[in-house]
């Protein structure tokens, strides 16, 4: 009975990971891809995507759910890259330059996002999502109309032929994989972009260290219970804004790392799905709206991208249509997000019920007076003895 129950609990708590693992394992074989290829892909994609996913951690600690507003940071990163390309700054300096430009922009964006989300407490996720759309409109306005007309752009190669507005695809030749190639570790058939991994490692260390700071502790407190934190004198709104700002800045760096690996940028679309992929990854890794760890990030990136790599091929081989695999992986991505949100909402209701179980029912009928009171009394006495 209890074993069954604990298994059931284990399953509901890890349902997303388990279902995902199952689908992926089933799809590996029909894809016909070699293990070497898959492993190399995973190594590349871990470097490419992990930073973005890590950017989601802090808002989760602060109880703000999945930061769909991270797209704002991605846009800031892209603006940084546009300027780096504009001035033809190449290589690692180019990437660093883009990050330096992106930082103040993303700090501002993060502040805007934090203020807006503070006005929509309890609805952070949907609000963040719509905010990303809204800022996307402004981003398009700036990049498509202001750049080249009001904001000086000196490289005609990145402008549309009408004389203003940035082209819809930018070539990142100058910075392409320069971070990855800075320290490329080769071993057998595999190559490992060590520099990128080091950057990700530093970020992980930062997150671990950050959790030990006073600010990190405050963030946890705010995430657990805003009212109590407020009563204890912790500036709740400010702490939440800081969490979002850090997340946004990290997202802008993450997007730069992502794009330097890709080698080109779809100026008006590259950020559309940033939050989707990052959120899907962290959820697949076993995180929930309220709880996430660094291992969740890496497990998630590997699992999600494993499926992304194999599913189009599997679709091609099984159904004779690559599009099926393509749609399938998107279906899975959205489905995973929906499923884990549903499971989370459902589970927290269950938890609330379980927490109140003790108050229900008169345990032992007639002797009720003492019956209910006894249980906690025993616990209290036991505790006293220790």
């Amino acid at each position, binding site marked *: 009975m209890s074993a069954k129950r604990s298994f059931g609990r284990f399953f509901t708590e890890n349902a997303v990971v388990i279902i995902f693992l199952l689908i992926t394992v089933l799809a590996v074989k029909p894809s016909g891809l070699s293990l070497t290829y898959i492993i190399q892909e995973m190594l590349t994609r871990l470097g490419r995507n992990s930073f973005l996913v890590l950017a989601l951690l802090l808002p989760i600690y602060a109880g703000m759910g999945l930061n769909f507003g991270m797209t704002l940071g991605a846009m800031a990163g892209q603006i940084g890259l546009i300027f780096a390309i504009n001035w033809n700054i190449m290589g690692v300096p180019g990437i660093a330059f883009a990050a330096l430009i992106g930082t103040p922009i993303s700090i501002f964006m993060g502040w805007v996002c934090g203020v807006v989300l503070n006005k929509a407490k309890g609805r952070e996720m949907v609000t963040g999502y719509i905010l990303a759309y809204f800022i996307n409109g402004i981003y398009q306005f700036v990049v498509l109309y202001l750049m080249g007309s009001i904001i000086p752009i000196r490289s005609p190669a990145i402008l549309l032929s009408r004389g203003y507005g940035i082209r819809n695809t930018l070539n990142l030749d100058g910075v392409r994989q320069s971070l990855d190639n800075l320290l490329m570790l080769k071993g057998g058939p595999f190559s490992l972009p060590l520099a990128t991994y080091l950057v990700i490692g530093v970020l992980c260390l930062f997150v671990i260290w950050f959790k030990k700071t006073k600010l990190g502790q405050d963030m946890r407190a705010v995430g657990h219970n805003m009212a109590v934190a407020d009563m204890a004198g912790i500036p709740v709104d400010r702490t939440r804004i800081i969490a979002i700002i850090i997340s946004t800045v990290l997202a802008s760096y993450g997007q730069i790392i992502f794009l330097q690996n890709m080698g080109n940028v779809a100026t008006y679309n590259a950020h559309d799905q940033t939050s989707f992929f990052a959120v899907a990854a962290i959820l697949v890794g076993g995180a929930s709206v309220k709880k996430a760890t660094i291992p969740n990030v890496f497990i998630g990136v590997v699992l999600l991208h494993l499926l992304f790599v194999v599913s189009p091929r599997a679709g091609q081989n099984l159904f004779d249509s690559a599009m099926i695999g393509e749609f399938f992986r998107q279906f899975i991505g959205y489905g995973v997000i929906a499923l884990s949100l549903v499971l989370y909402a459902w589970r927290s209701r269950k938890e609330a019920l379980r927490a109140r179980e003790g108050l229900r029912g008169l345990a032992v009928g007639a002797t009720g007076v003492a019956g209910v009171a006894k249980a906690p009394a025993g616990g209290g006495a036991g505790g006293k*003895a220790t």
Partner: protein
Amino acid sequence: MEQGTRLLSFDHVSKDFYGNKVLHDVSFDLGRGEILGLVGENGAGKTTLMRILFGMPLIAGTGGYEGRICIDGEEVRFKSPFDALDAGIGMVQQEFSLIPGFTTTENILLNRESMRPSLMNDVFGDRMSTLDRPDMRRRAQAAISKLGVALDPDMLVSEMPVGHKQFTEIAREINREKTRILVLDEPTAVLTESEADVLIKALRGLARQGIAMIFISHRLHEVVSVADRIVVLRDGMLVKDTPVAGVSVRDIASWMVGREVSSDRAEKAEERRLGAEMLSVEHLWVDMPGETVRDMSFSVRQGEIFGIGGLAGQGKLGIPNGIMGLFPAGGTVRLGEKLVPLDNPRAALQMGMGFVSEDRRGVGLLLDESLEWNIAFTAMQIHEKYLLPLLGGLIKLRDEKSMRKLTEEYVGMLDIKCQSPRQKAKELSGGNQQKVCLAKAFAIKPGLLFVSEPTRGIDVGAKRLVLDALRRSNREYGTTIVMVSSELEELRSICDRVAIVDEGRIAGILPPHAEPSEFGLFMAGERLAHAEEARGA
């Protein structure tokens, strides 16, 4: 013990809310290391007094207070609770303000953590300091041992028994170096008796270390056993300030409740012919947060007005809410011969029971809709009234005309002051909103009506009207009424019998003309002793 030196003193403190005087000229002192028991009924002014002490914004926002509060002989006027904390006054509240996912240590030191400055401080500010966990543990341990109880500093609060949560709260307050005065508001409310004993011992220990305490509790025997001195408030006035030695629980109870039996009781000497048993409740439990019903049994006779009283949080409100299916409940409830299915509001309504909720704005009204809707809705949904059948009854449309007629009828009958029946409920005053709730309940013509706190927060005139309407409904239509109220006087003035609820159970049922101290004793949790006394007699 080095008692006697005056630490805190209230000096002629008065307070009114919009002309409604809630504290009259209250003066008393608290000495170093003294434990002062502060007792009084709901609404006696305890909470307001503490709010004044802590400088709650609510007080300043409603015109401040008169009189002075002095610490060490110097007047203080705190602008916010944080100022009070800085001055060394700690508060332990009824609800736990702990974070369940944090450990004991983390909760005790919440926002007062030990820190080691890091390099980043100069860049991003003080909050970049890292936590000094070993030191935090040491400080928490110190607070715990000062309290003299066994608490695991590394245990998560969510995994603690209730008693330990309470200790954690207290440890948090005494962790502040400066804390000299501790206010404990019903600290034993959630504790079992053995836990409460441990707590009381711990408090005495703290007092020996020089910490003064204001101990607020309705459990009078605890007050007697822990306090050095007792201050009794009644209707905002200090009625007694006496050392505890030689004072009995019964004395306190009568000071608390004691007032003359209201004069309008005399005319109630009418002959009451009550019918057979109509509602019988056996072993009812209700899971209503803050008003848990543990185990209740009672019965109500046809045509009776049955009163249920007791202090807030003891479970009296849970009774109607549970029977009407609004909160999870269990046990056996019969209406006449029929079993009432619990957890099913519709069935309860269809069986002819009505309910006027204590939560007027939350449950009682559709604030954004018209009075017509508010009054007719339940009757429409339950009895298919005020509907126009169309296409042979396939479609039933709202009959706005008859809804209006109904509303106008009740507006006249209950003297509801409104501009029109179309006015939105939220635009009415509290008293008129309450009348709308009554009208809603009357509109379904219930055989048994539960009324919960019908006069809470409404002015005197409206109070009288509401009570008269209830009495009239009882006398003229024979409606059986179960009335739940915190106002004992009100219950005694209208009810045929009054039950007093304590800790989720019925402490006793008394006729309305019983001695006030009897009611007081039941409220003070003296049920067991009393019951045994009765059994013995």
